[in-house]
């Protein structure tokens, strides 16, 4: 009987310890960015594809489960002047990023390609100007604006006055991507 109780207590303690350690991951800081193994395709000018369209694969953002990386994305969003067109997510000269509408897809790979290659009608290409790892950080932050990220990862507060609520408290908006142009699909 006693042994059984010890076993239960021991197991519970182990589970608690495991949970504790798992929680550290969201704050883990990696200062040496890992080499990128994903290259965005060139933005295609038409839906015609010689050789046919390759099958779609789902690429996840390597930094999307880490609060520190997403917070860095938030810092870079201002620093690289994304806010110049998209404001703090509400949009201006560029489209809003905190709503449910995604012109070129809401998947991380879509946003990655959008930042790297630009899009017609205004979005400039940041290829060679922003290192790969930082692009992924920005992708994470852009997705957090409309609540696509888990609550424990999204930024909790802004350093400046901000009209909208923090990314963490914004409700998750279901992406409306009925008409993602073929050219925005990621192979």
């Amino acid at each position: 009987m006693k042994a059984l109780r010890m076993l239960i207590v021991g197991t519970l303690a182990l589970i608690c310890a495991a949970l504790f350690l798992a929680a550290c991951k969201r704050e883990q800081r990696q200062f040496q960015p890992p080499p990128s193994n994903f290259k965005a395709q060139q933005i295609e000018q038409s839906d015609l594809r010689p050789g046919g369209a390759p099958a779609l694969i789902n690429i996840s953002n390597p930094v999307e489960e880490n609060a520190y990386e997403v917070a860095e994305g938030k810092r870079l969003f201002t620093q690289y002047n994304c806010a110049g067109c998209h404001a703090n997510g509400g949009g201006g000269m560029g489209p809003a990023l905190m709503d449910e509408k995604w012109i070129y897809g809401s998947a991380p790979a879509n946003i990655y390609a959008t930042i790297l290659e630009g899009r017609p009608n205004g979005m400039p290409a940041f290829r060679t100007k922003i290192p790969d790892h930082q692009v992924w950080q920005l992708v994470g932050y852009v997705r957090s604006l409309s609540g696509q990220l888990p609550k424990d990862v999204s930024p909790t507060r802004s350093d400046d006055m901000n009209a909208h609520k923090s990314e963490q408290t914004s409700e998750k908006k279901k992406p409306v991507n009925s008409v993602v142009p073929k050219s925005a699909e990621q192979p």
Partner: protein
Amino acid sequence: MSLLHLNRYLLGLATALILFLSGCGGGVQSALNPTGPQALNVSKLWWLMFYVCGVVFVLVLVVTCIAFLRRGERNASPDEKPILHPPEEKEARKRNVVIAATAITTVILFVFLIESFFIGRGLTAELSRKQGISIELTGHQWWWEARYMNVDASNIFTTANEIHIPVGVPVSFRLKSNDVIHSFWVPNLSGKKDLIPGKVATIWLQADQPGLYRGQCAEYCGHQHAHMALLIIAESEQQFEAWTRNQIQSAPTPTSDSQKRGQQVFLSTTCVMCHAIGGTTAASVFGPNLTHVGSRQTIAAATLTNTRDHLSQWVTNSQVVKPGNRMPPNNLSSDDLQAVLDYLQSLQ
């Protein structure tokens, strides 16, 4: 522990202490080596406190020893009965001693308080004079941005981590922070003052002798706080004028082919997103201004000397030198890297 061991231990401790104390004596970053009126005041206060506290410390030790010895004498005969009603005049004497000691302590603390108040106020007092140099110093994680103000806007220039000042001229600083709380402290020249986000603090200092003085962020500000230093170079009026004239200029145009290619690489890759070089399209304010980076003695906030090797290491992967700093590693080809280094070194 045997006596021999104890002896060795004490000898080691004494040697360490001597080495430690000799480290305070001179050097480019020492409050005990003041070279300006501000630091002189601070060091006067320090020595006053040191001597007074030293005397008090020794007195307390002596009195404690006397008390121990006396107690030993009294307990010599165990048959003696404890004194429950000591004679009145003896009690009165003891009471007077305690009252006097308390009064002296209070007076000493008040002297310290008043002295410290006036010296502290002197450090931060705004300079009312019109001439003199005014520098806006902004703390970043983890480097210093210095902007030399001037009534003539075309004479304003920005540099980083290396501040030149003329000898014998008061220099006032407007201290700001871009992110978290930092603290500006050049021990040889002045006391310290915090840089607080959203607030402008002021401090002034003056160097009475030419030389190089090192300052250090004195408020923990994150991962690379320890590597957030700056140099103050005090020089003659003529040297300072020459330096200023050069700093106001735009960056020199690249002359050799390699330098031209370096500029091209700089302007077409990640560098341009954070750094500014006067006279080019690079105008970002998030990293140190590199207009005259080749003329500086150090890079990375006085972490590395400004040699080609260090520059190369820093450009390629600064995360090895200062993990966590804001500059990402750069994946430049060997030719491009050499060209960028040529260009950066040409920015005198």
